[in-house]
């Protein structure tokens, strides 16, 4: 980034002009391009380019953070979407162009850190330089006089400097001192730690995985590939990374605001009580809360969502159960008005689709319409529309479990049919029109959406992040400076002491520091006055 023989924050002089460039061979050109890449200008350019390149990803939904948003965006903007797709804007932060910028930036960074580290290593072992001839040309120049001996004054000055943390070197009639090597050390730690963050983030992403699973009260999940509803493995993921554990959701307890009329029904606490087993070990009672993930088998389990999973039981005309299981409903608002879909391709005479609307605390308005005004189950009603026809599950094409295609279906209960929507409270049983059988709302347990996350390098990312802050503070606030004390014996035998300093990098306090040194030194030299 900078000339390695300069301190990190050295300020370049204006560029010289009119220099005849020598002819470069292939190696010369390689060196030229390397110099260009590792120059401060290029680094700055790449840094600012990185800032600009990050913008599109905040304007357009990203596959990684908002996959549904991407689908909606593509549907809403069929014209521009393919163009954005081509330029990888939906995956900005793993796109070729974004990667190219930060990789070049980091190559530039490495190309700068390595020579600077070597130079700093040498500087750390070097002695402070010879005292300049004319201290008065330097910053903070000040003088004092003393009646004592010049050599004594200098050696006392060396003591003062040493105590102040300077590295000192004695010369004939002067002492030369330097301090603040930690500034450059901090700077190098900062930049190296940034590389560390990048590498460990890459390793963590490569070897880790995340998986999502909906678990209903009373049910369990195990940590295996087939169990997850969705699963994102890293590039180097193997099944061996899945530590075998099981989690049973014993109960899920939300707390909703009851007193504050301005926030009635707002969720204020979620607690999932679970039983876990790791490997074939003992089972253990644990809890998972938002902000308090469960740690198990090197993975973390987060509580990211919840809702209702009504158990719908469907019987054929003979009374035999053909379907009975909890169905997770998608919450539609913060008060948990939810939408559930059951598809039943077999068991009855016709294929059946159940579209349910769950009102946890149902109230009826003047027109007889249902609404729900509280997220807890105070007066739960499941309003059910039923469809028969072709569910489209037989042709092998994947379909969304949370939606139906009404085009190939006929509504047999609901607003578009002769039978109105069926309203079920827990325990209610209703006939399915057309003599197909019965439908029952058996119970309404809750479900939670668990996010299992394994990142083997996460701790290291944190370590490097802490080093980034430490290095930054050190490199910005520790002044690096040289100071000198010189003793000149006049013809009258009076010794004039000269003090001056030289800032190496940004150092606003230099003048004050030199003055303070001079005062301390004189204090040291003058005999204590008895009172």
């Amino acid at each position, binding site marked *: 980034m900078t000339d390695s023989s300069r301190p990190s924050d050295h300020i370049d002089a204006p560029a010289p002009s009119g220099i005849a460039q020598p002819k470069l061979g292939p190696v010369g050109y390689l060196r030229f391009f390397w110099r260009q890449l590792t120059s401060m200008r290029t680094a700055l350019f790449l840094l600012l380019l990185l800032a600009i390149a990050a913008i599109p990803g905040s304007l357009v939904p990203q596959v990684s953070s908002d996959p549904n948003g991407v689908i909606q965006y593509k549907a809403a903007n069929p014209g521009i979407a393919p163009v954005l797709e081509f330029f990888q804007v939906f995956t900005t932060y793993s796109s070729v162009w974004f990667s190219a910028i930060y990789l070049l930036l980091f190559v530039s960074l490495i190309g700068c850190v390595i020579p600077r580290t070597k130079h700093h290593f040498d500087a750390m072992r070097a002695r402070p330089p010879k005292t300049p001839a004319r201290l008065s040309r330097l910053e903070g120049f000040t003088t004092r006089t003393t009646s004592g001996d010049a050599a004594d004054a200098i050696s006392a000055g060396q003591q003062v400097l040493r105590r102040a943390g300077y590295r000192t070197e004695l010369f004939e009639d002067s002492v030369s001192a330097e301090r603040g090597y930690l500034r450059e050390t901090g700077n190098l730690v900062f930049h190296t730690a940034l590389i560390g963050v990048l590498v460990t983030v890459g390793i963590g992403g490569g070897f880790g995985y995340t998986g999502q699973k909906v678990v209903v009260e009373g049910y369990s999940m195990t940590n295996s590939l087939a169990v997850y509803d969705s699963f994102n493995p890293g590039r180097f993921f193997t099944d061996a990374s899945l530590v075998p554990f099981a989690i049973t959701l014993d109960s899920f307890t939300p707390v909703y605001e009851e007193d504050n009329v301005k926030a009635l029904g*707002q969720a204020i606490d979620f607690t999932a009580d679970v039983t876990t087993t790791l490997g074939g070990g003992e089972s253990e009672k644990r809890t998972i809360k938002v*902000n308090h993930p469960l740690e198990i088998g090197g993975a973390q389990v*987060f509580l990211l969502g919840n809702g209702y999973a009504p158990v719908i039981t469907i019987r054929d005309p003979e009374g035999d159960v053909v379907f009975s299981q909890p169905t997770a409903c998608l919450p539609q608002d913060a008060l948990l008005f939810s939408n559930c879909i059951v598809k039943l391709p077999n068991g009855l005479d016709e294929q059946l689709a159940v579209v349910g609307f769950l009102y946890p605390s149902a109230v009826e308005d003047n027109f007889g319409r249902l609404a729900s005004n509280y997220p807890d189950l105070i007066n739960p009603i499941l309003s059910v529309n039923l469809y028969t026809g072709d569910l489209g599950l037989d042709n092998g094409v994947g379909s969304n479990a949370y939606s139906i295609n009404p085009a190939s279906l006929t509504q047999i209960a609901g607003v578009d049919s002769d039978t109105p929507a069926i309203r079920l409270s827990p325990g209610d049983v209703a006939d399915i029109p057309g003599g197909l059988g019965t439908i029952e709302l058996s119970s309404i347990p809750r479900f939670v959406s668990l996010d299992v996350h394994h990142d083997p390098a996460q701790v290291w990312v944190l370590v490097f992040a802490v080093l*980034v802050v430490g290095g930054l503070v050190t490199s910005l606030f520790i002044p690096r400076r040289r100071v000198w004390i010189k003793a000149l014996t006049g013809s009258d035998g009076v010794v004039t002491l000269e003090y001056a300093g030289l800032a190496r990098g940004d150092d606003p306090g230099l003048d004050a520091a030199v003055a303070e040194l001079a005062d301390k030194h004189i204090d040291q030299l003058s005999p204590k006055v008895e009172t």
Partner: protein
Amino acid sequence: MTDQLVTLSLVAVYSAMAIYTVAFILFTMDLARRTAAVSTVSPVVTAHADGYTTVLERVDAPPAKSPRYLRAAFALTIIAWVLHVSAAVFRGVAAGRVPWANMFEFTLTATAIVVGVFLVVQFWQDLRFIGAFVTGFSLIALGIATTNFYVDVVPLPPPLQSGWLVIHVFVASLGTGFFAIGSALSIVQLLQSRRAANKASGLRFLDTLPAAEKLENTAYRLIVVGFVFWTFTLIAGAIWASYAWGRYWGWDTKEVWTFIIWTIFAGYIHARATRGWRGARSAWLAIIGFAAVVFNFTIVNLFFKGMHSYSGIPGVGE
């Protein structure tokens, strides 16, 4: 009890705004007075010999006495700030938590911190000449907050119930405070260097202010402090996200913009050591950086979809 405290908080905010308005006017009048005063002050030049060389130095025009408008404006700013801080405290007590859990509260507290940084910085250097900027900025921000961002006190949703809310958001506000003062100085620096370039044209009061290079150095020192806070905010946010959302970094829109701001100010710090970038160009970077901070808080919060949807304003950012 809560309702009284909320009302008390609002009364304090409105009073603070009224006093800020007067302070703003007085700060502006002080700038006008400086314009008038310039014509009567001639630059003082001293020469001194130190045994080796003779040096000519222009001495900064000595402030004969702190002018009346300026002293009054500054005193009023202190009074308004005390009211402003108590507004935030009342709001926090009313809610039973830190007063920065939604956009209204965050604006209230962050502007208090901006003004606080401005006041504290005076112990170090006399930067009262940016008082008009600081009070004007806070006034606009508070005006928008009370009219457009206001929400009632409601309990914290579970993801916000974390110690990191206290640390992450507070340090972000501190960083914002330092960036605000630093970029204000950068604006004056740009005016000053433009005036120096085409002699004696432009705003005459600039002659009474420090030279461009001094402004640049002061701005730099404030912005590096802001940068350290911002770096910390970024990391604290990532740690919190790893507990609350199951990942420490996910390129959420707010994360993206926090990263962009970090990168701009990192560029600013490097620009100072880059040939051709010192001076006006780095000042522009500081101003762009602070503009991005404001953008991140307003436009990104209100119009971008993301996980930081804690404005509390119905239908926003969801």
